[in-house]
């Protein structure tokens, strides 16, 4: 077919454009809060209000359909050139509508039920994710794949993370587990408690979180609490812009982790953004805890 009739091309285009709405069948999905929503199959204009979801969408190869992101969606770097709709907690409703999304993805952690109801009322199908740990993150990868019409790709992402998790688990299964403290903020010292994604990662990588269960997921600790808990490893994972972590911990040579030089920095995103890069976080943790290098390659 060397020569294509211009007429045919135009007709095809018209058909595509005209029929886009009616041709795309709507499918019903259940989001991570158990809400059901009807989304065109496949959605073509996706707005993401969640930095980790933006990252997942790129991993799924959906960047062409991503038409709006937040100012916090900084990974991958290409995402920063997407049209912005505001911050993740306080996006501009107008900017969202202006992007004419046929799928909006938000997080239960920051978007309130009132906001979700508002989006729904404006006819924007809204998918709410709720990833607070490792299992729910893996589930999220699958569900994002499904709702965006690429279930195989989602499944593959999920399996890859599961594979890394399992490999890490079996590598550390017979080893003694060091006690670990993870600081997500230096001033004030804010640590990750048991009901967090970080906790799941620590456990999987063969460490024992020293932070007991309190009503606060990320409690504030004084130096005394650190000295009293005396963790064998301290993971420092603050977002950029925090004070130098060394200054805080190295003042206390009484800490085992300081004496044995096991205060380890891990990039915040690797431990805190529920997405494919958690594999990097697991890899870094297992290296810090047990000195084991785990390959991220997945055997087919």
């Amino acid at each position, binding site marked *: 077919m060397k020569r294509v009739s211009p007429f045919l091309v135009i007709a095809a285009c018209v058909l595509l454009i005209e029929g886009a709405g009616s041709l795309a069948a709507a499918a019903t999905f259940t989001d991570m809060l158990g809400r059901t929503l009807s989304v065109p199959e496949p959605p073509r204009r996706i707005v993401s209000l969640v930095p980790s979801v933006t990252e997942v969408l790129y991993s799924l190869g959906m960047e062409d359909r991503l038409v709006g992101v937040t100012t916090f969606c900084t990974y991958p770097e290409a995402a920063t050139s997407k049209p912005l709709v505001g911050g993740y907690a306080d996006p501009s409703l107008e900017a969202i509508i202006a992007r004419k999304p046929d799928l909006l993805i938000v997080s239960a952690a920051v978007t309130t039920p009132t906001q979700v109801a508002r989006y729904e009322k404006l006819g924007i199908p809204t998918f709410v994710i709720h990833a607070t740990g490792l299992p729910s993150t893996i589930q999220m990868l699958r569900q994002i794949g499904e709702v965006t019409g690429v279930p195989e790709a989602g499944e593959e992402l999920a399996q890859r993370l599961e594979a890394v998790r399992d490999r890490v688990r079996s590598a550390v299964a017979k080893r003694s587990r060091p006690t670990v403290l993870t600081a997500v*903020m230096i001033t004030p*010292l804010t640590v990750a408690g048991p009901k967090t994604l970080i906790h799941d990662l620590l456990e999987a990588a063969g460490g024992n979180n020293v932070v*007991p269960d309190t009503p606060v997921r990320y409690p*504030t600790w004084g130096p005394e609490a650190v000295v*009293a*808990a005396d963790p064998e490893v301290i993971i420092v994972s603050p977002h950029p812009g*925090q*004070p130098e972590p060394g200054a805080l911990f190295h003042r206390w040579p009484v800490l085992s982790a300081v004496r044995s030089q096991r205060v380890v920095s891990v990039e915040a995103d690797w431990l805190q953004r529920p997405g494919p890069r958690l594999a990097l976080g697991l890899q870094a943790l297992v290296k810090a805890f047990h000195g084991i290098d785990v390959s991220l390659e997945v055997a087919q």
Partner: protein
Amino acid sequence: MRRQVSLRWSWWLLLPLILFLSLILSLSFGAMPLPLSALWKAIVGTSDETARTILLEIRLPRALLAILVGASLGTAGGAFQGVLRNPLADPYLLGVSGGAALGAVTALALGLPFAWALPLAAFIGALGALGMVYLVAHAHRGSTHTLILSGVMIGSLASSLLLFLLWTVPADPMRSVLFWLMGNLGTADTDWLPLGTLFTAAAFFVLWCQAPALDLLTQGEETAADLGLAVGRSRLLLLTAAGALTAMAVALAGLVGFVGLVVPHVVRLLLGPAHRRLLPASALLGASFLLLSDLVARIVLAPAEIPIGVVTAMIGAPFFLYLLRRKEGRG
């Protein structure tokens, strides 16, 4: 009358005793359970290293900081309530809190290092806002009402500038500043302690010498002038000293609420309003109060720490109401 005088004297034994006991309690309890004997062993140097570190390098500096900040806020609160003739005045009323916050956030927006620039910037911001209030209110001759209203306005102005800056600064370092501003004795750099102590002592001495002037100012500007006080000059001196005390406290520990409001009030109920007694008693009681509040904040959910402002309000408000009711009951 005699009975009352002897009662007053007993307070001067009781208040230091309360402070001493608060200090011992504060050193004895924490995230790590240590027996009382460990305290003694740490002092004489026979304890193990961990206990020693916890007592001498963690609990003691923190307790000293609490004493310093509590004493500063108590004294400054008493002075502000006198100068402004308003028992509801607190040390942050005249734009000090807004100024401190603005200073801290500005330092952050400029990317200055957290550890030393933040207290310094907060200090400058707090005193700067107070100075501005003073100038705007024509306080050399104006009334206390103008002063208070100007304070509220400058405070609002600082807050709006603060919101603007917050909008431009990335969220993560911002959270640190917000936490820091909420009041925290745990994050302060203990290197500031000697300087802070010296400074606080100097400001306190100035205020204490000026106690008779404060008494006069509670009678209103005109009466104070009739009684021989150069009102404008005296007010400038008092506001500067009290403002410096507050700014120092904010720089060291952020905005610790309630101490400066409630402590002078309680002291007034116990010892009367004369500032020669009110100021030192407020310093002693403020120090004890903050020590105990910090102790509660550290041990209730240990090892997690709850914000100190929550504790000061939760202990202070009911206690204050109790005193008020008891006082009313006695007529």
